[in-house]
């Protein structure tokens, strides 16, 4: 295994130095298959993503819309395992790009929280984004993460009270994930008017970078979000690009590269 990898803070700091937002790209591991997934994520890296989120496919993804559900289901149907997710992390982190795992909670609990933290660290992973737990869910994750200095990325939402935003950001390391809409993942035609105020409320209580996710699908939207956030998170749009070219992998990867370039341009335009 490759040993400690880059943490996300460095990537956000570099973007800030360049007076732009960081581009955070998500794809699930094992989609369309394990090797194909690694190849696709490397395209994201080469075309301009600053941070990578590797999704751990799960049977009951309550925060995901139809696009990411379809990709995760396809990965599960082909037998993707947690060990494949770690293998994907290792391959991606080897590029030097900070790589976090985005995962629902039960697979981590089942794997063993301390064991997962150790194996993630050994694979060069930067940390976890945990969409279906909160810092007050009484999990072992904060302690396990601290033992390896891993990033702990919890979510804040438009419905979060100021007190909960303070509690949540206090528990984060690396960056804070602001969900721009009240809803599930999925590309949206317009960006949300809820995101700006949420980022403002979040930045009022933390110095951590705040990245905005849920719905961004093109450079124009990325530029808009980048005008007030430290990072722009894109997932469903990348998955969609691959799903739309399911019969032609080369064309899918080309579409992925073009979309990434457009988004990378967007985060520099603000």
């Amino acid at each position, binding site marked *: 295994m490759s040993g400690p990898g880059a943490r996300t803070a460095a990537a956000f700091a570099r973007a800030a130095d360049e007076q732009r937002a960081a581009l955070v790209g998500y794809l699930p591991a094992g989609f369309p298959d394990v090797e194909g997934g690694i190849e696709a994520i490397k395209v994201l890296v080469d075309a301009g993503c600053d941070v990578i989120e590797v999704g751990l496919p799960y049977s009951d993804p309550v*925060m995901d819309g139809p696009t990411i559900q379809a990709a995760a289901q396809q990965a599960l149907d082909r037998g993707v395992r947690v060990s494949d997710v770690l293998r994907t992390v290792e391959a991606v982190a080897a590029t030097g790009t900070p790589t976090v795992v985005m995962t629902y909670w039960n697979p981590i*609990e*089942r794997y063993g929280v301390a064991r997962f933290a150790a194996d993630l660290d050994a694979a060069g992973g930067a940390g976890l984004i945990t969409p279906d737990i909160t810092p007050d869910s009484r999990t072992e994750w904060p302690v396990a993460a601290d033992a390896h200095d891993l990033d702990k990325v919890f979510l804040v*939402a438009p*419905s979060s009270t100021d007190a*909960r935003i303070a509690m949540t950001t206090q528990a984060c390391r690396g960056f804070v994930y602001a969900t721009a809409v*009240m*809803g599930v993942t999925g590309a949206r035609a317009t960006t949300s008017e809820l995101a700006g105020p949420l980022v403002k409320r979040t930045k009022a209580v933390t110095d951590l970078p705040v990245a905005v996710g849920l719905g961004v699908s093109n450079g124009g939207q990325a530029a808009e979000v980048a005008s007030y956030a430290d990072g722009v998170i894109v997932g469903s749009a990348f998955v969609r690009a691959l799903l739309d070219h399911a019969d032609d992998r080369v064309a899918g990867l080309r579409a992925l590269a073009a979309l990434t370039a457009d988004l990378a341009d967007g985060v520099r335009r603000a």
Partner: protein
Amino acid sequence: MSGPASVWNADEQGWFGEFGGRFMPEALVAALDELTVAWQGAMADQAFRAEFDTILREYAGVPSLLYDAVRLSEHLGGARILLKREDLNHTGAHKIRNVLGQALLTRRMGKTRVIAETGAGQHGVASATAAAYFGLECTVYMGSVDTKRQALNVARMELLGAKVVPVDSGSATLKDAINEALRDWVASVDYTAYLFGTAAGPHPFPSMVRDFTRGIGDEARAQVLELTGRLPDVVAACVGGGSNAIGMFTAFLDDLDVRILGFEAGGDGVETGRHAATIAGGDSGVLHGARTFILQDDDGQTIESHSISAGLDYPGVGPQHAHLAKSGRGEYLPVTDRQAMDALALLARTEGIICAIESAHALAGAFDVARDLGPGGLVLVNLSGRGDKDMETAIDWFGLGR
């Protein structure tokens, strides 16, 4: 809906020992907190309780009867068996108590729309009924496998004015319907209440649903005392998510001489892997917002459950049952499809009562206990629902009408 706080209750954060809690997206925490405050306020409000009791009495046929199953008991030659007749409630099951409670709370909170998940359609029909009663908009999520299996209940819901949305994702069954209802709720939480169908899910649902169903046991305890002058030796109920069981058990938890028995769906037999016995055949994990016993593979992916009874066909269980099992206060045992169907037929022939297949699991388990106890023993069984909805299954199983 009365009784002292019990050591079996959850703490402030919804933890029953090591089980329960709240494993949910931050976006829903505010709504769950709002619901917690509203539910606690309602429980402390005499006017709310009085209105709930009145609606149950005048609209739902509650308190349900306690029935002394003399011929059944004689046939078995064992203990005396008493049946709590929740099958006689409006819409045919204990579920009406839960939905009327939650819908009344929805009105109190000023929300105008309810959503629900349903497996076989019983909770969906009950939710559509409560929505009609209170004039609320209603959307029911139902796995597309189930909308085909349970077309009659889809028609009922639609006749009651509800919108039924088939869910194709995942295994297209109850657990996926819950996922889809949660996705709706994240986006509609301002004006929508989620009427959860069982005593599971994130805090406060397990405790709140228990509060709305515990009348079953409160009534039964008084009825048994009046009829027999003593407490039963055993109280039995079937356990899917656990709402009828916790509703029955709660009144007896502090009666330490009363054995608490929950019967889970053993399907083809726990040893075959095709079952829904999450306590007997699963292990600890997190599903749908709570830590509890679940069916999962080595990677923590949910495994599909199997049972002849759609209402028990769920790969999780309410966290209070997990706690009662772990602490030893409750015993949870599997009952196979065959045992349940045999019990269903025996009740029909000895007493002229066709019960739900879910309830038949409780009966089958109780028969064994009644035989062990022998004459002089007293067994209370929750007959959680009636069997009309299950006639197609019965036709196939018994080869009826051929």
